[in-house]
């Protein structure tokens, strides 16, 4: 099979996947807010699990860390599946040409609101790195890990979370 024959079909397939319609089914605002709470709650639960497993010893501490780890993973999975799907809520992670002009305006507003928060969180991480360079006694791998994952989580999910939190309940047709 010739590459020149396959490429147009592959390009058309890729384009059809990327430009397929965005779902209107964003659900009620109350449920979307629970998804946001679940997603960011899972971050704190996983940080607690990590800190517990790193610092505490004994069977009870290990079991508690494991329970927190499982709870955090379940909660994070629920948050990711409900917020970061192919719906308007996840507009910040979708192509502009699948959104109408109001949705693009909402997406741009959410991105501009999220950007400084992600920037500030990253700045805190960089400041911590500078501090541990000067005072190695402050070095704590759990904190470094929490800062890294926090910055990653905020970067991928905060704009979508802002839309999920603020978009009113959808109208009936």
């Amino acid at each position, binding site marked *: 099979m010739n590459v020149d024959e396959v490429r147009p079909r592959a390009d058309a397939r890729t384009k059809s996947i990327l430009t397929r319609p*965005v779902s*209107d089914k964003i659900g009620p605002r109350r449920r979307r807010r629970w998804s946001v709470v679940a997603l960011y709650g899972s971050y704190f639960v996983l940080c607690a699990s990590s800190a517990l497993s790193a610092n505490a010893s004994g069977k009870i501490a290990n079991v508690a860390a494991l329970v927190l780890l499982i709870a955090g993973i379940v909660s994070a999975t629920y948050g990711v599946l409900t917020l970061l799907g192919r719906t*308007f809520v996840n507009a910040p992670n979708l192509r502009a040409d699948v*959104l*109408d*002009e*109001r*949705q693009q*305006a909402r997406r741009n*507003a959410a991105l501009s*609101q999220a950007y*400084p*928060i992600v920037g500030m969180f990253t700045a805190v991480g960089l400041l911590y790195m500078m501090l541990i360079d000067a005072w190695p006694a402050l070095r704590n791998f759990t904190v470094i890990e929490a800062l890294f994952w926090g910055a990653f989580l905020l970067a991928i999910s905060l704009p979508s979370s*802002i839309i999920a939190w*603020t978009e009113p309940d*959808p*109208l009936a*047709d």
Partner: protein
Amino acid sequence: MLYIYNIHMARETSVADRSGGKIYNRLAVLRAERGLTRQELADALGINYQTVGYLERGEYNPSLELAFRIAEFVELPIDAVFSRTPFKPMSAELYGSRGGATT
């Protein structure tokens, strides 16, 4: 804290207010006259049906391009669909000049 306050205020301020003034429209009446659902109108205009709702409630000011598209779809001049001042009710516009006197 100031940043969080700004986010809150941005959310409380409608899109129409932020873009420098409310644009009134007759979209709800025109859609009802034509017996269209929001979804049907949205499909005809190539927008999301939620956006039709936002337009009808005056919570979103359309771009000039969308405003022209809507006017073309309803086959009316753009100033019959959109205005910077509130529209009078259709009945007042049609019969108001007669002073209420009918035979």
